[in-house]
């Protein structure tokens, strides 16, 4: 079984970080498991954690009156769930739900924000990496908004 350190080191989002920074990050991490349908976090709650999905699928849901829970995105193995912990007021914008059994690394964002306050280089590296995640999600969302399959015969 791979150690927590190895899981973090091998993940694309943390890949290439210096060992001392990986150690700081791993100090705020723990393994977690969720059953199908379990809620990882709820819209509006404090975003004091984020996750690296190891296995399974996490849905990001929003409640829409008269439509119920609508899934806006899913996040799978190797991907990061959560960036609300980076930006004040540190609250979840969506509800996270395990579509299927999920194994993940959970990061204590309060712990990590504290370490970032003391280590500008760590902060810079994390922001750089999470910016890439954010840009990827933004581009995907823009394409989603275009509703490209709506009118075309293809």
């Amino acid at each position: 079984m791979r150690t927590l350190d190895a899981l973090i080191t091998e993940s694309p989002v943390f890949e290439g970080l210096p060992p001392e920074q990986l150690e700081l990050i791993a100090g705020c991490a723990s393994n977690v498991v969720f059953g199908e349908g379990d809620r990882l976090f709820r819209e509006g709650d404090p975003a004091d954690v984020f996750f690296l999905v190891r296995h399974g699928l996490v849905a990001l849901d929003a409640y829409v009156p008269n439509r119920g829970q609508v899934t806006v995105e899913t996040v799978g193995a190797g991907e990061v769930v959560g960036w609300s912990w980076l930006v004040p007021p540190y609250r979840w914008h969506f509800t996270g739900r395990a579509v299927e059994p999920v194994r993940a690394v959970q990061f204590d964002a309060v712990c990590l924000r504290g370490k970032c306050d003391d280590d500008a280089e760590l902060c810079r590296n994390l922001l750089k990496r999470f910016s890439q995640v954010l840009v990827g999600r933004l581009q995907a969302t823009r394409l989603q908004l275009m509703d490209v399959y709506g009118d075309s015969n293809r």
Partner: protein
Amino acid sequence: MATATAEPTALGRGSMTPLPYRVVRTRRENHDNWTLELEPVGEAIEPIGPGQFDMLYAFGVGEVPISTSGDPELDGRLVHTIRAVGAVTKALCAAKRGDVVGVRGPFGNRWPLAEARGLDLVLVGGGVGLPPLRPVLYNALAHRADFGRLVLLYGGRTPRDLLFARELERWRGRLDLSVHVTVDAASSDWHGRVGVVTTLIPGARFDPAEAVAFVVGPEIMMRFTARALLDRGIAPERIWISMERTMRCGVGLCGHCQLGPTLICRDGPVYRWDEIAHLLEVHEL
């Protein structure tokens, strides 16, 4: 502009005059797509290959270009999956077993399957872009040892818009084929992925240095997909897309499907990414 290695075909009988074909089977694929299986009443057109299209004629209504979606190794029977969006396609989708439609074809070039032999083959379909890829998949599965990893990435608008649901389930059960499906929007009772098809590319298992990708879907989706495949490391000359424009004659005479220096019905519809990408950036075309 003729692509370097897509497989062109000569025009044969049935390229100018529609030949009568009888509908022998219809299958409703989802709320607005039907698959028709057709057999010749008399004379048949030349065999159609993966990537090519026929002009299907609903008598008294009109004619539309539709890609083959059938198994290329099944002789004689034409298989076309059609989305009911306009007068002609609605008439075709309403056809019943025993009805007769006109067929001209086959037109256009084929997917360059020979280019993919020995390599990982990544198929990316968006919306009704899956039917033109299905013959490729049938072929690759029939000659499985000729390819490395076989990956199908399929994106739809919503779960109810997905095509070939039963076949997708069957393909998912195979150990020698990796199938990933996503939809752009879904309610929480959907147990699959939600997000655009490009989000499937980073996590798909293939070796970018040894892979070929075939992409079909709306043009904007193909552009984003090609970028994601390039980001993943696939060489531009190993990415192929299938283009669509308004096609009328099918034989390169009328010019309706012109895209800059190329006529899609004659030179395409399958193009190598590095040969066509610059034309997709010209808004006036």
